[in-house]
């Protein structure tokens, strides 16, 4: 019997969000997605949202969690790369809509597929990284900046390459002379085995190592670090907090201002964004209106899906910096500037400013 027959004619959408161990209240990635759902529910009071957490973080367990509850809901929002393998489940449950964040669905053999009931979104991290790079280059006083990442997976390499592109862009076009500091011992090896440089902690959950890297960079004169390293990033934040305001960081994915308070100050220069909440809400609206179409989308600045925080009181950028960032943002939107990315075909060093 098809699942649709047994379902009651729901007054509103029954939505579930399935997340990995950190839960919808991680104050970060998952929460941003959840906020998108909440915003939708606010406008459609008959809709219902349920948060489900899978505690191990293992991909098989993540899929099982989704399979356990799939019959109960109209929409499953699956946040995180762990859910890539959702393809099979989606094919078997064509009446359930899936919103997949940060990865595209794969079938049983691991090949990426496009499905009519799955809207999968990934983001051009290199663009966000680019804004971080420009901001860092404009704001540094020591003329030394750095980026810290978790593991050299494509998304992290994108952030790193974008950041480096941003610094190079600023050096060439905005009159800065800033050096990117890399600890040779922290060079990353990407998934193809190529050495991509950068500063990699080797884990997304090792705060202690994060702090050590932050300190080592600080010792080398770095005063701004772009941190895209999950929980490992907390360690870098700590290093910054202990520097008496001499070391600042740029947050990533969501506005991390609240994580940066130290005494009456804050170590967050700005945060660069993946705008997930708006996109999740938009897709939910499409489902509600019946205009939903499955797709695998790479979201970029052109849809305002990447960006940086310039809201007053949530950043410490100089007005001139914000102005220059806005200019760069427009160029990125128009694809005049295309930052380097892991598989974009060129490295930051090969980046050409048109």
């Amino acid at each position, binding site marked *: 019997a*098809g*699942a649709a027959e*047994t*379902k009651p004619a729901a007054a509103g959408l029954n939505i*579930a969000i399935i997340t990995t161990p950190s839960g919808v209240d991680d104050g970060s990635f998952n929460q941003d997605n959840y906020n998108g759902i909440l915003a939708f529910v606010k406008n459609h009071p008959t809709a219902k949202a*349920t948060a*489900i*957490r*899978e*505690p*191990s*973080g*293992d*991909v*098989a*367990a993540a899929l*099982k*969690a989704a*399979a*356990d*509850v*799939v*019959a*109960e809901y109209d929409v499953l929002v699956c946040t995180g*790369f*762990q859910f*890539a*393998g959702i393809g*099979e*489940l989606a094919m*078997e*449950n*064509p009446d*359930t809509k899936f919103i997949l964040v940060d*990865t595209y669905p*794969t079938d*049983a053999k*691991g090949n990426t597929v496009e499905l009519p009931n799955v809207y999968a979104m990934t983001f051009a991290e290199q663009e966000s990284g680019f804004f971080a790079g420009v901001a860092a280059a404009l704001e540094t006083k020591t003329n030394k900046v750095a980026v810290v990442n978790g*593991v050299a*997976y*494509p998304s992290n390499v994108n952030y790193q390459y974008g950041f480096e592109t941003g610094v190079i862009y600023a050096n060439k076009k905005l009159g800065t002379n800033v050096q990117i500091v890399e600890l040779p011992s922290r060079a990353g*090896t990407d*998934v193809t085995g190529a050495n991509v440089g950068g500063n990699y902690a*080797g*884990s997304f*959950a090792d705060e202690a190592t994060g702090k050590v890297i932050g300190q080592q960079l600080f010792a080398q004169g770095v005063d701004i670090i772009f941190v895209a390293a999950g929980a490992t990033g907390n360690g870098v934040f700590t290093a910054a907090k202990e520097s008496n305001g001499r070391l600042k960081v740029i947050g990533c994915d969501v506005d991390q201002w609240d994580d940066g308070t130290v005494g009456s100050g804050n170590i967050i220069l700005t945060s660069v964004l993946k705008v997930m909440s708006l996109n999740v809400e938009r897709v939910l609206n499409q489902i509600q209106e019946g205009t939903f179409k499955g797709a695998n989308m790479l979201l970029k600045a052109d849809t305002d899906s990447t960006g940086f925080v310039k809201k007053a009181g949530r950043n410490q950028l100089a007005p001139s910096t914000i102005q220059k960032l806005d200019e760069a943002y427009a160029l990125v939107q128009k694809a005049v500037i295309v930052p380097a990315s892991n598989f974009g075909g060129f490295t930051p060093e090969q980046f050409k400013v048109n």
Partner: protein
Amino acid sequence: MLKRTSLIKRLFILCCGKGRHQLLRTSLFCIVLSLLAGIILLLLLGKNPWEAYRSILQGAGILAKPRYAGRKSQLTDFMSLLNYTTPMVFAALSVAVALKCGIFNICVSGIMVFSGFMATVLVGYSNLDPFVAKILVVLIGALSGALLGMLIGYLKHRFNMNEVVVAIMLNYIISYVVSFFIQTRFIDPITRQSVAVTQNARLTLFDYPVGNLKMEIALVFPLAIFAVFAIKFVLDRTRFGFELKAVGSNSKASNYAGIQVGRAVVFTMIISGALAGLAGVSYYLGSNASIQPRVLPSLGFDAIAVALLGNTSAIGSFFASLLVMIFDCGTTYMSSRMQVLREIAALITSILLLFSAIGIFFRNLADRFQQEAEEV
């Protein structure tokens, strides 16, 4: 008043007092107690405990859910429960066997990672015939586990090293070293885990079509059942089991009686290690298909408590595994239906294990009450 207390006492004696199946009755009593604690917890959170427990059973495939997704049914949920229970049975047996010999094997997690990794690397990526591959996976799992177990047993026997410390150290070393190899050689960039093993090497037939259903069929579940009876037989009926238990209760007296204590310790750890290794392959190449770097499976630690809940007996370990895994497998569904944090289930499980850890106290208390009752 007086009468009421004595009624409660009599009930308690009935549950934990002397007589047939005292251990079993005490365990059941602990289970009931912790379910009661869970009820209180759920009531405090304003949830309906009856619904919550029912949805756990539904999630685990013991009861029928109101509706099922495409190609799923209660049977598929139940088969999935068995699939997830399989590694726990092996792990709990591993702990139980070692405990019988007086050794505390806290290295199950590490051994699981090691054996899972060995099997993944040696067989998981090959194109061997499914039958051969699966047999090899089981053999490699048992063998690599046995090897580590032997190492622990040997270090304990020969160098008088505290097995708990050795195990803790080994857990971390294995976890980091395996993580190193996964990150540098076997990483899947999308899942950020080791590249999934081929279907040929998996010990679980995943999404196996049966009628219009898709099942998880744990091929090694029968092996787990066999292991339960084999271990029971070894402990109860064989010469080696006798020696193992003797060494566990009093190694000095065992030596005096001519039992080779070192040999018994090492062999016990070989068996315990092999079981942990089987837990590893049935976990990493069965219910899962890949390994998370730097993560020690919590199952290996839970198994300690599970073995205890099962009174370190083989049969007991099996049922305790099943019970704990019902909770584990049903949690997601419950948390989804009841809109509660899934930690509730983890809390109830912890409370259950706490109670079962003081089972001996309950038994003694019941004995005392009984004494009093008889004297009056």
